[in-house]
């Protein structure tokens, strides 16, 4: 299919039901994680009496705002396990959902600009290989072969000294991913309820039995949070805390251009990442705004800095026009790894802390979270990510692999 001409869509892919008085499982948040979790609960575990409650419109949060980079080249075993599981699910997802998601395995380059970068990158390539994740170390000439438009001259402030390369990485169309999961979940009996804000929890004897919402009380056998940047607000209502800070994270696109960028390029050091969307916009992002914020917007100097970095690495972009910028609310943890699993409240579950990088995890996290909810115990992929790691000190420090928001 010509990537630049998207297929026609039916007007409605799912129903718009009234909430029932109770469900076996209530999921809070219809972003990628909530929708994937609902789908896998229904398809893998036969649990179909499920509602996904969404304060706004379906997948209008970070799911609509991310830059869609998918990869699994993280350093530690626990991370490689869940991100690689997710990447394998991505590889079969169009078929599984019977829906186009424009998953394009165009590879990702993570550039190195300092000796420290080089060492860290080579170490990560070796760690990836031991974990069965495809990874290569490329010298600057090989980087240029993969991505001819990148500047490898040595007269810039931070010349490219090489890159890690994951050929199976890529991008997908985030809104289509959400719609694909939503459509199949709805077909399997899940109620997708928009404009329904969860405002409180009913807890009896230490166990959650329902939620209060802007559309009335809804009883629940189990409640699964999938509220990304709003998780702290919800857990406060449920009477416990999470080690998360919510930050604005911004991104931008240029006007449409001929397709000139064949892959995804990320640079932790110069601090930008760039890909080209299927229609031709250059898509760029970088780090979070420094301050806590729930405003879905940030400061313009952040945008200016990432454009400056992009022009240094890609001189061809210097005349491209900025078309649009936006922001989401990302849920940041101190070790740049997610928080998943059980909580101090029985039958209430947590999936959050994906911060700047949880789009790639949508299939894998949804799959493992559904299993955790269905069996009321952390799945093996989830177990390392429990709240207890902040007490035991078993942090999963992925700042090296995750330093640019991605």
């Amino acid at each position, binding site marked *: 299919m010509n990537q630049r001409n998207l297929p026609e869509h039916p007007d409605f892919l799912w129903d718009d039901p009234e909430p029932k008085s109770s469900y076996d499982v209530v999921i809070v948040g219809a972003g990628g994680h909530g929708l994937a979790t609902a789908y896998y609960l229904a398809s893998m575990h036969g649990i179909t009496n499920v509602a996904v409650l969404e304060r706004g419109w379906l997948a209008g949060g970070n799911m609509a705002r991310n830059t869609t980079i998918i990869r699994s080249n993280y350093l530690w075993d626990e991370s490689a396990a869940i991100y690689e599981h997710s990447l394998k699910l991505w590889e079969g997802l169009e078929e599984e959902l019977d829906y186009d998601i424009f998953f394009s395995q165009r590879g990702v380059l993570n550039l190195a600009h300092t000796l420290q970068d080089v060492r860290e990158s080579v170490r990560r390539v070796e760690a990836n290989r031991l974990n069965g994740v495809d990874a290569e170390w490329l010298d600057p000439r090989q980087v240029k072969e993969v991505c001819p438009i990148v500047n490898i001259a040595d007269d810039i402030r931070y010349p490219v000294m090489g890159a890690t390369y994951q050929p199976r990485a890529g991008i997908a169309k985030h809104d289509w991913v959400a719609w694909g999961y939503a459509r199949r979940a709805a077909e399997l009996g899940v109620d997708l309820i928009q404009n329904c804000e969860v405002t409180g929890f009913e807890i009896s004897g*230490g166990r959650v039995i329902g939620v209060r919402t802007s559309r009335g009380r809804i009883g629940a056998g189990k409640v699964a949070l999938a509220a990304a940047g*709003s998780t*702290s*607000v919800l857990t406060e209502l449920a009477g*416990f*805390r999470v*080690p*998360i*800070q*919510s930050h604005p994270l911004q991104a931008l696109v240029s006007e449409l251009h001929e397709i000139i960028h064949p892959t995804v390029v990320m640079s932790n050091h110069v601090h930008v990442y760039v890909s080209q969307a299927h229609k031709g916009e250059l898509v760029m992002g970088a780090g979070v705004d*420094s*301050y*806590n*914020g*729930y*405003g879905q917007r940030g*400061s*313009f*100097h952040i945008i200016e800095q990432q454009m400056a970095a992009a022009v240094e690495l890609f001189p061809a972009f210097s005349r491209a026009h900025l078309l649009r910028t936006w922001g989401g609310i990302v849920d940041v943890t*101190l070790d740049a790894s997610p928080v998943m*699993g*059980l*909580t*101090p409240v*029985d039958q209430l579950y947590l999936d959050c802390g994906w911060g700047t990088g949880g789009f790639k995890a949508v299939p894998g996290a949804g799959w493992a979270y559904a299993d955790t909810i269905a069996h*009321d*115990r*952390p799945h093996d992929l989830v*177990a390392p990510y*429990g*709240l*207890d790691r*902040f*007490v*035991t*000190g078993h942090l999963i420090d992925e700042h090296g692999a995750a330093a640019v928001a991605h």
Partner: protein
Amino acid sequence: MLTIDCPHCGPRPETEFGYGGQAHVAYPEDPSALTDEEWAGYLFYRDNPRGEFAERWVHSAGCRKWFNAVRDTRTYRISATYTSAGPVPAGIVRPRTDVPHPVSKGA
């Protein structure tokens, strides 16, 4: 970009400042007496309200002093700034110090 009213220098653009997260988080009085849960609370848990937040900023490209601000995390509007040394304005919400709950079961 925010305009931040440094209590020492007056209103300056955000690019001159660094962010320091939640204000008024006290170092434990007797560190060796802390349980693992209490350490987790001190090291990893900060409040994350949707609304008014007392937070620290440093005027890195100006007087280089740390100070505090009260900012609404929804609108980003700063309603007050005050020095770290001076009196704390009335109505500032202090950080929660309760320790994180243990998780009831599982690992």
